[in-house]
């Protein structure tokens, strides 16, 4: 699957690494070069420095040929605009936008954009953990622990950084 991600923060960087490790073709866009540090070592996808709501930038990174577009920047509005461009102009099949304002998330979900709000997801998850509602939390928490153990394990090993990567 060809996936384009806008926004290389913690979530974007993590997800790009996860999809890349599963063998998907990942391109990640961010305005800030420093943001690419959120990508895991050995990331095999493409990074592109540019504005993820800019029509020309999105065309350049091949959104028109992408199977999925994920808008994960810190700005709700930027994510909503980029997601709508991907869906309505480039006709991308699967479009997901991170929208932290739950009300806005709901309105745009009705317009056919898959939105998720960190606010409600995290809030409900923590609530489930607190109330021992294992049904909601168990699966997600299990997967989370599995992935995080992998990340920590990789970090704990003393790594030899290749000379060309140290520049």
């Amino acid at each position: 699957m060809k996936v384009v991600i806008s926004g290389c923060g913690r979530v974007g960087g993590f997800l790009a690494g996860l999809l890349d490790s599963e063998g998907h073709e990942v391109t990640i866009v961010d305005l800030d070069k420093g943001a690419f540090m959120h990508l895991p070592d050995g990331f095999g996808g493409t990074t592109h420095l540019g504005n993820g709501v800019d029509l020309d930038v999105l065309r350049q990174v091949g959104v028109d040929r992408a199977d999925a577009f994920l808008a994960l920047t810190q700005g709700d509005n930027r994510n909503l605009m980029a997601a709508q461009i991907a869906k309505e102009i480039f006709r991308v099949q699967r479009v997901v936008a991170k929208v932290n304002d739950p009300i806005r998330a709901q309105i745009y979900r009705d317009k056919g954009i898959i939105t998720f709000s960190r606010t409600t997801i995290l809030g409900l998850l923590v609530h489930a953990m607190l109330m021992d509602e294992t049904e909601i939390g168990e699966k997600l928490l299990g997967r989370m622990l599995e992935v995080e153990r992998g990340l920590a394990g990789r970090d704990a090993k003393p790594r030899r950084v290749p000379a060309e990567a140290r520049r």
Partner: protein
Amino acid sequence: MYVLVAGGGEVGFHLAKALIEAAHEVVVIESDRRRAQWIEEQLGSVVLNAPADEGRYQIEAGCQRADAVLAVTGDDAKNLVICQLARHNCPGGRVIARVNDPKNEIVFKALGIDETVSSTRVLMNVLEQELPTSGFLPLMPLTGSHLEIIEAEISPGTPAVGRSVRSLKLPEGSLVGGIVRSGKVVPAVGEAVLEVGDRVIVFAPTVAEADVRKVLAG
């Protein structure tokens, strides 16, 4: 008229001031507390200190009875969301967006926001009309459509010289409305042949402006 001005920057402030002077009822929504306070000192209690891109504040500002919502922040993505939320929360009124990057005019139209104003584009149009040598003048956009009126002077050596109106390969959806020849209007029938010095008036989709230029001005 009751007008909601979303964003109290330079554009929003002066717009609100002008509307108030013209006896319209105005509410400015501005998220920055100090800026909101300053506007209130200048214009009176017409400010709601809140983010304009959250629906509940649009409703609190009374957008249901607004005749128009103007999204004029300096952030195109924010203006888009303000307009779309206004459409959702307050159907009925007009919704107009300021766009900073001119190519977002096309984006906004594709996403359902038809009325946009781009200062870059306005300035370019003024400049193009000022330049006598250019010969290609986008005269004005037609409101409520994606069309504009273009005037093109046929210069020597350009591809349109000696061609009939019918044989011009104008982009789809455009039409030659008339030809001005030696100060007189000549009907733009299919057989009319263009001569050097003719001024051709064309109705064309805004997005096809570059193609019209290619056909008439080379």
